[in-house]
C-alpha cells in the first residue's frame, strides 16, 4: 500500500511543481493526473500495486469533499443578504450547464453514428 501511495503522491508533487514552474492555470493535481495517464500509456498497463491504492482512493472520492463542504457553515451572513437570489442563480445555472452539455454531446455522438 505504501508503494502505491508513494507513486501516486510522487505524480501529485510532480504535477504541483510543473504547474508552478510552467505558470499554467491548471491545478497541480490535474497535471498529476495527466502525467500519471501518460505513464500508464507508456507502460501500457496500470501497475497492480498502484491500482489497488488508486481504487481505494476513488472508492471514497465523495467523502474527500466533505471537509471542504462543511465550510458552507461560513456562508451564513451572506446568505441572509443575497441568499434567495444566490440559490436561484446556482440551481438554474447548474441545471442549464448540465442539460446543454449533455444534450450537445448526445446530439453530436448520434449524428456521427448515423453519418
Amino acid at each position, binding site marked *: 500500500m505504501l508503494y502505491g*501511495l508513494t507513486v*501516486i*503522491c510522487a505524480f*501529485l508533487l510532480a504535477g*504541483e511543481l510543473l504547474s508552478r514552474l510552467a505558470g499554467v*492555470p*491548471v*491545478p497541480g*493535481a*490535474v497535471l*498529476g*493526473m*495527466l502525467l*500519471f*495517464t501518460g505513464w500508464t*500509456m507508456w507502460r501500457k498497463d*496500470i501497475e497492480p500495486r498502484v491500482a489497488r*491504492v488508486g*481504487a481505494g482512493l*476513488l472508492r*471514497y*472520492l*465523495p*467523502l*474527500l*469533499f*466533505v*471537509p*471542504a*463542504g*462543511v*465550510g*458552507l*457553515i*461560513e*456562508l451564513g451572513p451572506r446568505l441572509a443578504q*443575497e441568499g434567495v*437570489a*444566490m440559490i*436561484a*442563480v*446556482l*440551481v*438554474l*445555472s*447548474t441545471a*442549464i*450547464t*448540465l*442539460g*446543454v*452539455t*449533455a*444534450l*450537445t*454531446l*448526445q446530439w*453530436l*455522438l448520434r449524428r*456521427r453514428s448515423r453519418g
Partner: protein
Amino acid sequence: MVDPAAHWHEATGWLRAYPGLWLVVTGAVFLLADKLFRAGGRFALLNPVLLSILALIAILHGFGVSYADYFAGAQMIHLLLGPATVALAMPLYLNLHHVRAWLVPLTLALAVGCVVGMVSALALGQLFGLSPATLLSFAPKSVTTPIAMALAAHQGGIPALTANVVILTGVLGAVAGLPLMRWLKVDDPMVQGFALGVAAHGIGTARALQESETAGAFGGLAMGLNAVLTSLLLPLILAFWPGL
C-alpha cells in the same frame, strides 16, 4: 476520591482538543449517510455528500465548534483529494479508446458547456440582481476549487465565497444531475459523466464514479479540461461583458 463530573469534564476537554476527533466523526457520518443512500435506492436527495455536510454543520452548531477547529482535524481527509484526483488517471486510461474515437464531439461539447456555465451564471446573476463582487465570484463556479478561487481573486471576486459556491454547485450537480439527464432522455453513461464533470467538477465526477467506471472516467477528463478552458476564456468573457 476523584469527582466524576470534573473527571468527565477533563476527559471531554481532551477529546475536544484531540485532532483525530473530527476525522473520526466525519468518517462515521459519511459511512452512515452512504448506508442510508444505498438503503434508499440511491434516491437523489439522500446524496451522501449532501447528508454528511448537513449533519456535520448541525453537529458543529450544536456543540459550538468553529469551522477552523473542525477543519484542523478533518483536513487529513481533505488532503487525500490531491492523490485521489491523480488516481482518476486510472479510469481515464481504461477509457482512452473512447476518448480517441470521440475527440471532436468531446471537444465541441466541452467548449459549449464551458461557455454556457460562465454565461448562464453571469446573465442569471444580473437578472436576479446580485452585486458585482458576488457575480465575479459566481462566474467560475463550475471548475474545481483551487482554480475557481484563483480566477475569482484575479478578477476581483471574493475567493472565500467562490469556494462555497463551487461546493454548492458540485453538490447540486451530484444531487440533481442524473435525474435531470434521465428526464432529458440522456442515458449514455459517457455523456452523463462528461456533463457532470463539466458542470459540477470533482463532486459531480465522484457521483458519476458511483454509477460506473466509464462515467467516472469522462467526469475526470471533463473536469480537468474545463479547468483549463475556463481559465483561458473567463478573462475574455468578462472583458466584453456589459455592466461589469
